[in-house]
């Protein structure tokens, strides 16, 4: 019911029914205004539930917003803003909220108590996965996901400040004013749509003006300060190390085109003040969960802020003075108060409505909404007709963020609740209600004092002026659970009631952590915000201990649920990993080459030609180009590291197993790099362009690792070496020209053609390519006469197109990764498929490359007996010799007669190819004592793909073993 007719309303729907609401007010307020009481079914028992709170702590009124791919489940109706055309749906009910068939769970409740699942569904084991779990999940639950890709936009952002103030109630506003006026760089964040906190909801004055007006003035003053950033609709969700906070901003409010739905902030603050306020806690009386039973402060919020009366005839039930406000505010707003029930004996209340002191609510009636309550007063039971009950069991300071770094809060007897433990989160100071200071005056005082201290810490000179406000004492006599029959709900979100907790204690789950897991109290999205203290009190009572001895569970981030989409904003699809493209990318794509990922790089798989329908046809042809004519391949993705300085050669001697100081200028050499533990890290070539200048190449995969490694050597292990390194991978486009006609091809692009003996094998140096200085290397990864030609990256695209066109006129063409792989397997050249981190120089037959004339990384460890044991798996070639020609990588090797089981495995395959050159299925692999077993026929078994083949063990160099083709 609305207290006044609103000026401007918009239409929205709830479960298909049309309603009107004021733009920006919570959907919960609009539904209450329309007299909608039943809004949800409970998690486990499917009990009818209504709106309970007026904030993010809402346990009952979880709804789904929107439909299809954009459906957003588990949105709190108390935080969702009314907007034209908004579609809202209830959850966890079928076929409808009123007639939910799963409500049968409620009738079965005597069997469904705490621990029911653990006890019942133990056996037989397979039944759990296949039967019990799916059934339980369908019956118990929250809103579901659409299963479709989310079309909404999300963002993430970073912010930095001197002072982050969390919460903009009286304490937060006062803190922001104090620090802001002193000139501090302040961020003030609040999860509400407007700042002011409880000042927006209560009837009280500050400095003689209504609290809401004072708050509006404060916000206006703050908005005018250059050094203050105001963030509304922003919930600070977690406190992390070194002053980092997570925060979720509901950017769009009501869904708006072009705006992201949510933004996840990482805010780094030198200091932070927690002004998160307090949350009201329920009282556990029988059937305290009917729609219409609400928190007392929420009733005031709907009446005072939103002009909505949650009922026609309201009763109030509480155990402290604050509850009386509710009755007075209702009367002032013209709503009928049926009764005020105060559990305390020692209070005197004058009012023109019935007041019962020393009384308790002992029962409620009403199937889909509250109709009446029963109270016990002076030994008598009395029934009161009422459609709304405002309850308050007291206030729990919102200590959550102070627990995020594993510290637990401290029990304070006089307020019967927990307060933050000092220094619980370094740099985070609590102030106001979250610190147990409940009066407005105390909040203003603490906010100003803490902010002034921190401003002084920042070297500023703050002035403290605190306005006059209400300073009423908070007098509470704890009331947790009311005696009597019926279920008394403690955790409304998880459907946990008093008896569940008592059962846990009875079954010896007396520790609060055990009770929590046994009953599920305090789990799920709500995290026990409203129920933890009450549950603890019930457990303490059941175990005969005090609350402080019983202990408390802790709170973990996030304070409110954070959608994965917001945390992963920008990381979907192409945003998941940056793309590195070579200069030949466009030309390759234009030729129809399927691009495959190589780390972050994209490389062409093969270049299909007309009439080719299978990748193998293209691959075989490209291998033929290289073996018989000439092929062109972009090899720019290999890491290129420029090394200069008087000790450049000394650095290479230390990081490679072999010698580089003896290398002549104008020559390149293959190098093997070990990790310090004696295993192979990487291999490649290093070319000497000057006495003090080398260019090292690494494999594509290990480029980053090698760079870190070289920096470590230079900065830490060998600071005596005077050398500098720089990654130049992106600066050079480099192409392999391989095949018998490679020199012919090269000479078509060089300004000064080279002769047959000018560039012997492993020569390197500068050349002119159409007037551009490039680098030429006579190196081969295919076993053919080959060159690698590098030019500054900006010329890469045109050089690639030119080389490919010329190669085609010579009967060759471009080749991709598939052909490159076949070519190198035919020659027994290794890649990271072979040097996979567990292989040693000995395993790949290169132990003689470890020079004994110098120290190098990995040298000491490489000589350990275990790493040179002749029983180790050694690199071999494998050739299919049986009926089955297809070999697969990752298959196991067995002796012919041995059963193909793990204990008999003698090795494995690492790379495979069909060789068109040799018309054979080839593999590289590792075999126990493999080098001594050339000629032996063994069995390859791929258990996964169910392929078995007979293979002959041979030298890994299948083709042109004496290397004459590359040298010639």
């Amino acid at each position: 019911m609305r207290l006044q007719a609103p000026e401007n309303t918009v239409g929205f729907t709830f479960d298909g029914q049309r309603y009107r609401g004021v733009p920006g007010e919570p959907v919960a307020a609009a539904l209450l205004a329309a007299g909608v009481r039943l809004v949800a079914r409970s998690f486990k028992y499917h009990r009818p539930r209504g709106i309970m709170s007026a904030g993010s702590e809402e346990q009952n009124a979880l709804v789904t917003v929107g439909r299809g791919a954009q459906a957003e489940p588990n949105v709190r109706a108390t935080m969702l803003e009314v907007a034209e055309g908004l579609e809202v749906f209830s959850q966890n009910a079928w076929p409808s909220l009123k007639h939910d068939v799963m409500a049968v769970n409620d009738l079965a409740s005597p069997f469904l108590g705490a621990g029911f699942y653990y006890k019942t569904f133990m056996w037989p084991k397979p039944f759990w996965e296949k039967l019990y779990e799916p059934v339980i999940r369908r019956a118990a639950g929250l809103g579901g996901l659409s299963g479709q890709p989310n079309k909404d936009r999300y963002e993430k952002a970073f912010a930095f400040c001197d002072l982050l103030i969390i919460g903009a109630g009286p304490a937060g506003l006062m803190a922001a004013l104090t620090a802001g006026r002193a000139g501090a760089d302040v961020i003030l964040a609040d999860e509400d749509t407007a700042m002011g906190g409880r000042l927006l909801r209560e009837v009280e004055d500050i400095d003689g003006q209504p609290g809401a007006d004072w708050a509006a003035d404060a916000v206006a003053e703050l908005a005018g300060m250059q050094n203050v950033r105001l963030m509304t609709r922003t919930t600070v969700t977690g406190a992390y190390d070194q002053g980092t906070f997570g925060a979720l901003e509901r950017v769009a409010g009501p869904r708006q085109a072009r705006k992201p739905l949510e933004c996840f902030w990482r805010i780094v603050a030198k200091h932070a003040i927690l002004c998160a306020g307090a949350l009201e806690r329920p009282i556990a009386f029988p059937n305290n969960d009917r729609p219409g039973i609400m928190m007392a402060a929420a009733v005031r919020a709907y009446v005072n802020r939103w002009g909505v009366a949650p009922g026609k005839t309201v009763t109030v039930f509480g155990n402290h003075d604050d509850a009386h406000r509710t009755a007075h505010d209702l009367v002032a707003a013209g709503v009928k108060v049926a009764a005020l029930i105060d559990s305390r004996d020692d209070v005197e209340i004058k009012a023109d409505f019935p007041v019962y002191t020393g009384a308790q609510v002992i029962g409620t009636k009403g199937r889909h909404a509250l109709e009446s309550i029963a109270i016990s007063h002076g030994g008598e039971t009395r029934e009161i007709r009422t459609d709304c009950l405002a309850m308050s069991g007291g206030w729990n300071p919102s200590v959550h963020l102070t627990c995020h770094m594993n510290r637990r809060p401290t029990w304070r007897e006089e307020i019967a609740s927990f307060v933050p433990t000092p220094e619980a989160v370094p740099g985070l100071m609590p102030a106001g209600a979250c610190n147990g200071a409940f009066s407005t005056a105390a909040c203003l005082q603490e906010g100003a004092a803490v902010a002034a201290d921190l401003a002084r810490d920042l070297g500023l000179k703050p002035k403290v002026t605190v306005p006059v406000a209400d300073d009423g004492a908070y007098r509470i006599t704890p009331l947790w659970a009311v005696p009597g029959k019926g279920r008394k709900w403690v955790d409304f979100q998880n459907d946990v009631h008093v008896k569940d907790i008592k059962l846990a204690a009875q079954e010896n789950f007396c520790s609060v952590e055990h009770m929590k897991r046994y009953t599920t109290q305090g789990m799920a999205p709500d995290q026990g915000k409203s129920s933890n203290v009450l549950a603890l009190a019930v457990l303490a009572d059941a175990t005969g201990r005090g609350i402080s001895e019983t202990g408390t569970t802790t709170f973990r981030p996030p304070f409110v649920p954070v959608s994965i989409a917001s945390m992963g904003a920008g990381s979907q699809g192409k945003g998941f990993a940056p793309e590195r493209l070579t200069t030949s990318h466009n030309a390759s794509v234009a030729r129809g080459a399927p691009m495959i990922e190589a780390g972050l790089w994209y490389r062409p798989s093969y270049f299909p030609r007309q009439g080719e329908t299978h990748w193998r046809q293209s691959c075989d042809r490209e291998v033929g180009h290289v073996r018989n004519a000439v092929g062109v391949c972009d090899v720019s993705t290999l890491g290129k590291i420029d090394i200069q300085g008087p000790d450049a050669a000394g650095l290479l001697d230390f990081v490679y197993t072999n010698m580089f100081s003896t290398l002549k200028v104008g020559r390149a050499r293959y190098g093997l790099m070990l990790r310090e533990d004696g295993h192979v890290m990487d291999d490649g070539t290093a070319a000497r362009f000057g006495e003090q200048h080398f260019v090292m190449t690494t494999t594509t995969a290990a480029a980053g690792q090698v760079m870190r490694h070289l920096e470590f050597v230079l900065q830490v292990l060998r600071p005596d070496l005077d050398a500098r390194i720089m990654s130049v991978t992106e600066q050079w486009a480099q192409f392999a020209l391989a095949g018998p006609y490679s020199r012919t091809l090269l000479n078509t692009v060089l300004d000064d053609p080279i002769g047959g003996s000018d560039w012997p094998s492993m020569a390197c140096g500068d050349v002119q390519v159409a007037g551009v200085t490039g680098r030429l290397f006579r190196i081969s990864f295919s076993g053919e006469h080959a060159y690698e030609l590098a030019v500054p990256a900006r010329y890469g695209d045109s050089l690639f197109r030119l080389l490919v066109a010329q190669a085609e006129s010579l009967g060759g063409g471009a080749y991709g990764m598939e052909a490159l792989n076949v070519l190198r397997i035919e020659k027994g050249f290794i890649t990271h498929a072979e040097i996979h981190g567990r292989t040693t120089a000995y395993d790949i037959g290169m132990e003689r490359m470890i020079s004994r004339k110098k120290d190098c990384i990995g040298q000491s460890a490489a000589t350990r007996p275990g790493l040179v044991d002749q029983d180790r798996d050694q690199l071999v070639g494998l050739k299919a010799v049986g009926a089955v020609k297809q070999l697969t990588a990752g298959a196991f090797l067995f002796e012919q007669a041995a059963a193909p089981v793990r204990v008999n495995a003698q090795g494995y395959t690492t790379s495979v190819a069909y060789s068109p050159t040799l018309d054979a299925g080839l593999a590289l692999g590792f075999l126990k004592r493999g080098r001594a077993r050339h000629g032996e026929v063994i069995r390859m078994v791929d258990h996964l793909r169910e392929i078995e083949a007979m293979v002959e063990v041979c030298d890994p160099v299948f083709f042109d073993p004496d290397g004459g083709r590359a040298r010639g």
Partner: protein
Amino acid sequence: MRITCPHCGERDRREFYYQGDAVALARPAPDAGAQAWDDYLHNRDNPAGDTQDLWFHEAGCGAWIVVTRNTVTHAVADTKLAAMVKR
């Protein structure tokens, strides 16, 4: 988590590459023997408290940094250029 790079100042830990225990700074002599090399390569303490480890400012200046931090509280007590740490 925030780490102060001695060159660049305080930065988000996402800018850094984590290596492991700073024991890697003290490389034994080639002939130090199997035990010394085994300790250097493989044996690590697992303290509940202060630890020193190596981070590489990969998305920054490229410095190797020795970070002294507490494994219980996550507090970072000190950061130094690895090149400046006496061994």
